[in-house]
């Protein structure tokens, strides 16, 4: 057993940290988050050139990483910088699906940051179920046409293409389809998200589409892509929590009330201690999930659900507790903490929340 990151991953982490420090200030991030695209194309492109997207993929498909620990390394560092860029939403999961369905040219373009492909699985925005789409794809001759509505498709606005799930009349399972963004019959309605960034509601009406992989056999592929995206989210949350921890400790050591720093008050000391040990538990959950990403799907999914449950529960608690320990200043837009807290809580709303994953774990 070895808990030390490899030299390569340490260097990768350092490089991302330096990029954030030098080229990704928080005020630019906040401005990008409310722009029409919801992210910063220049930063995204730079990150691709630095190899951050390549690190998420196997050598076989043109990357130079792709393991659970590579994904965790990248996204933990991105979390520390509250990086908004859609590496998870329009590169990681869709790139994996495309790589598994022999779309290697597109994967290469994704790795180079030249193309982004969004992922439309969710149809009922209240639900975390991505296994039962009502969107329907019909084949006429060699052509497929898809009709349905996908919601909460993150960073679909400005993406080059979208992958959607659908059922087909002739096969019992789910199928995946690739649709170019400019295709006739695709309408998008973009909206802002609370944590900065955007998402779209996508309406498809007899939209020409390309079948990815085998008709009706996409569920295992979706499941594996979901595992990657969920691991990335958990790692991002861990990075956010590390920063929130630093901010809170710093505040406890410097803010004076009643003649001494807050950190001298035992009631607060115990709460900080509780926060720190919970974050350590969250970190272990992420390590477990990263380690099991290559495991057989049942084992992998249990580790992913364990991590997402832990991150969801601990993340919300850490966000709320950090704001409370800061008091009024933690409630302000000017102070960094609130923005980290918002993203941390919103991570519990993607790819299944803590209750959803608790049940997945219990029933697996």
């Amino acid at each position, binding site marked *: 057993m070895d808990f030390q990151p490899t030299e390569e991953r340490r260097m990768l982490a350092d490089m991302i940290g330096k990029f954030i420090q030098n080229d990704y200030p928080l005020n630019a991030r906040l401005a990008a988050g409310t722009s029409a695209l919801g992210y910063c194309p220049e930063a995204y492109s730079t990150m691709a050139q630095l190899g951050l997207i390549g690190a998420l993929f196997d050598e076989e498909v043109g990357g130079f990483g792709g393991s659970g620990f590579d994904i965790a390394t990248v996204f933990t560092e991105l979390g520390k910088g509250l990086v908004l860029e859609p590496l998870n939403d329009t590169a990681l999961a869709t790139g994996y699906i495309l790589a598994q369905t022999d779309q290697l040219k597109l994967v290469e373009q994704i790795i180079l940051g030249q193309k982004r492909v969004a992922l439309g699985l969710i149809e009922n925005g*209240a639900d975390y179920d991505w296994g039962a789409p009502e969107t329907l794809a019909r084949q006429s001759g060699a052509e497929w046409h898809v009709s349905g509505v996908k919601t909460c498709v993150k960073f679909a606005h400005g993406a080059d293409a979208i992958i959607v799930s659908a059922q087909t009349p002739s096969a019992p399972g789910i199928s995946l389809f690739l649709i170019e963004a400019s295709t006739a019959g695709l309408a998008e309605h973009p909206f802002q998200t609370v944590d900065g960034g955007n998402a779209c509601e996508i309406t498809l009406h007899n939209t020409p589409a390309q079948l990815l992989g085998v008709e009706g056999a996409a569920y295992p592929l979706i499941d594996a892509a979901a595992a990657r995206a969920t691991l990335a989210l958990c790692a991002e949350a861990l990075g956010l929590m590390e920063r929130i921890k630093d901010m809170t400790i710093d505040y406890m050591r410097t803010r*004076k009330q009643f003649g001494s720093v807050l950190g001298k008050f035992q009631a607060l000391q115990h709460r900080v201690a509780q926060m720190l040990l919970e974050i350590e538990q969250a970190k272990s959950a992420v390590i477990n999930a990263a380690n099991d990403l290559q495991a057989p799907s049942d084992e992998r999914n249990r580790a992913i659900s364990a991590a997402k449950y832990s991150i969801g529960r601990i993340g919300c608690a850490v966000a709320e507790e950090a704001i409370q320990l800061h008091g009024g200043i933690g*409630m302000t837009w000017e102070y960094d903490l609130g923005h980290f807290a918002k993203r941390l809580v919103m991570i519990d709303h993607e790819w299944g929340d803590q209750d959803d994953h608790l049940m997945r774990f219990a029933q697996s």
Partner: protein
Amino acid sequence: MDLNLTEADQAFRQEVIEFLNAELPADISRRVHADLPVSKEDTEFWHAVLHKRGWLTYNWPKSFGGVGWSPVQQFIFEEECAAAGAPRILPFGLKMLAPVLMAFGSKEQQEQWLPRMCDGTDWWCQGYSEPGSGSDLASLKTTAVKQVDHYVINGQKTWTTLGQYANMIFCLVRTDSDCKPQAGISFILVDLATPGIEMRPIRTLDGGQEVNEVFFTDVRVPVANLVGEENKGWNYAKYLLAHERNGIANVGISGQKLARLKRLSLTQKRGGKPLADDPLFAARLARLEIELRNLETTNLRVLDGFSKGAGPGPESSMLKIIGSELEQNFDDLTRRALGRQAQAHTPEVFEPGYNGPQVAPQDMANQSAAYFNKRKVSIYGGSNEIQKNIITKMILGL
């Protein structure tokens, strides 16, 4: 013991409901139910409606123009107002300053200020906290120096809620530095139009603007605006804290949120089935409902005790802690109920004439912002940590 409402109380509830049905405009109610900020105009309008009926001062003693309702009736009123989506009665003048003026103000001050806060002439805000004095309020540094018939105020206040709408502010200021911090504080009323005052907005993490910083530079305030005695201001502030009990537990508002969550859980889907059928969600909701039932009776017991002359003890602090955490927990669960829809930040859906897609269910588009905004309720008005200090100080007697 009998927890049932009397026939008179039930008739009273009906009277309140009929009043709200007749007087509360639907567009205001909709915004309140959607947890959107209430405009200055809507707040003033609603105050005027209540004032006309004589209910704006529902918790005031009869001798000062109150309606003489029993604690149970006051409670029913608050509950029905919340259920109907009525704007909150602004507490700063009517619930915070008024009791201090009644107890410690001069007859002239009472006659001058109490009618004006009722008829809408004055919108009061609060000047307590300072950048260096949050939980440790008594360390405040804003000074008021007496010069013949004026005090000259210098310093900075912060977290002044809705100060941007106010024309008057009541402040705690330091009038003596050579003593225990608490013993050198005075309570003073300041006209915000006085030269030397600058109000600057503070943007909150949800993007809203409801709190402000207030800067005082050589602000001259007539000595007639001092409330009570010089250097006794801390006692008045403490008096207020211990007597603040109407609506502090927010039982009505939490009750409204419970009802909304129950409705929502029937239409939201989880795993293809109604959210209400999800055992984990059902358990979360049940816990909150049980807490709320308990709190309702705790609150009524406290109100009943006060009306019979009990206290002041730690009750206000108890109600504040339990009530604020419960309200936050309802906002938390509402956010959870929305699933991915909670990510949407779509204030545009509330614009008149909007006809695009609704990502979140009708009137639920502001719920995540509200969840983050409501983190404040365990921080403001004396943080819950300070409230716990107050409770143990009273109970342990150490």
